[in-house]
């Protein structure tokens, strides 16, 4: 795996983190013959980088995904491979729920047809359920609205 570069002055940038995240593939997509990363699927809710410390909020397409540990482990591996990364924190989040709207154009095009029905099933369930869930305790305490954290993803 090639290692993305940080900025010229050696500080880790969000761009470099995103570049590394783009190398993390979703096992189900790979099994289905699609070269799609967790970024293509819209699984990354947000990235914060400060002084080499990285915090990544991610979700998966469904609660209880059997590849949860594998994907999160791969994210740690990808970011820790960046020479400038001093500390990495990966936060799995189920709220707000992932929906097919988070797919990028590449993923939409690749998945047109065979998996659309599955995604719509997930969407139908997820939207209804997570509308009731509300915010994380730390967001509530900080007075942050639901969408304030985790929308910094591209």
């Amino acid at each position, binding site marked *: 795996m090639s290692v993305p570069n940080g900025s010229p002055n050696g500080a880790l940038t969000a761009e470099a983190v995103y570049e590394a995240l783009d190398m993390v593939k979703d096992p189900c997509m790979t099994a289905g013959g699609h070269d799609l990363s967790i970024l293509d699927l819209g699984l990354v809710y947000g990235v914060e980088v400060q002084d080499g410390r990285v915090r990544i909020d991610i979700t998966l397409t469904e*609660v209880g995904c*059997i590849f949860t540990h594998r994907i*999160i482990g791969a994210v740690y591996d990808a970011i820790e491979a960046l020479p400038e990364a001093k500390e990495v924190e*990966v936060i799995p989040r189920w*709220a707000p729920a992932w929906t097919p709207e988070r797919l990028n154009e590449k993923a939409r095009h690749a998945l047109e047809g065979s998996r659309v029905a599955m995604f719509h099933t997930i969407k139908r*369930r997820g939207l209804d359920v997570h509308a009731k*869930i*509300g915010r*994380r305790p730390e967001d509530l305490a900080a007075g942050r609205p639901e969408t304030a954290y985790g929308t910094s993803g591209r």
Partner: protein
Amino acid sequence: MATDQFVIDGICHPYNFSRENLNGRFGQIFNDVLYAFHPLNNPPETALSKEEWEHDWQNDEFLETMFLESDTDLACVHSTPIFDAYLDGLISVEKGADLKRRYPDRTIWYATADILQGEQALQSLEHQVTELGADGIKLYPAQYYRGRTRFWTMDDYTIAFPVFELAMELGVKNIAIHKALPLGPVATEALRVDDVGMAAEAFPEINFQIVHAGFMFLDEAKFLLLNHANVYATLEATFLYCQFDPELFTRVMREFLLYGGPDKLIYSSTATVIHPHYLLEAFKNFEMPEDFPIQLTDEVRQKILAGNFARLHGIDIEERKRKIEDDEFAQQRNGNGLREPWSTLRGQEVTT
């Protein structure tokens, strides 16, 4: 639903989620993933922060949380051998034995061991049953070990059957097997449920509980419930769908009720990953579709919430009610409402 239902939590735990107990990256991801479930169950007003949640639960605060903050009456605790993620296995044998010794009328305890260790594991299980009072045995079929999966299956003559033979010898009638929910990047072969059938046929005197039944391999599990009188579905984690995905919970219950029937299902809260009060409230309000032939009557609910588990362990619910009606938990409950969720953990025992 009647409000006076007796409730036996089929699996709940005084976990050790403390950061000091994490076994490397694998343990850290374990904690992170489990905590991610917390806000699905818990409204933000009372939800635990990650720092609060990462707690080494002590037995007394665990029982007060179960019995004073929810309508749970009895708690079944499994010790677990998840040493690949937690240094003490996550729920230590010592905690289970202590609960059983001090609260025999309020707790049921399942012993555990890593049975890939062979004779050493058999000796440990025998000790936990004969010397420490374990009521059943909890087994894990797969471990993540230095990048590889070590696993065994329930139909293995050399690894699993000696445990079942020991259980018979010791008079242990209940064995719970973790299935259907991968613990990390382990191979899924061992998490399939089909192999339970062979064990159930070979050891008809033992009740086999498929823990996490319905989470995966729903079709396979429902036929096991139908085919084998001694196979049960213990709905740890699966029951959470009652609260955060009722449509999926309906689908699971539809299959299990049709094929296994109301006598084969066992409630479990998964506490203290989540709070049992919110889950029990969700189940009170959960109904099967009107056109479904098996409705969740008070009778059916009582079987799921306590009756089936009580039957497996020979517990007479009316007799047990009398035994605990004036114990220390009952005395604290009498005249007081439920304590606010997590108030025991926070040291703020406030009644609602």
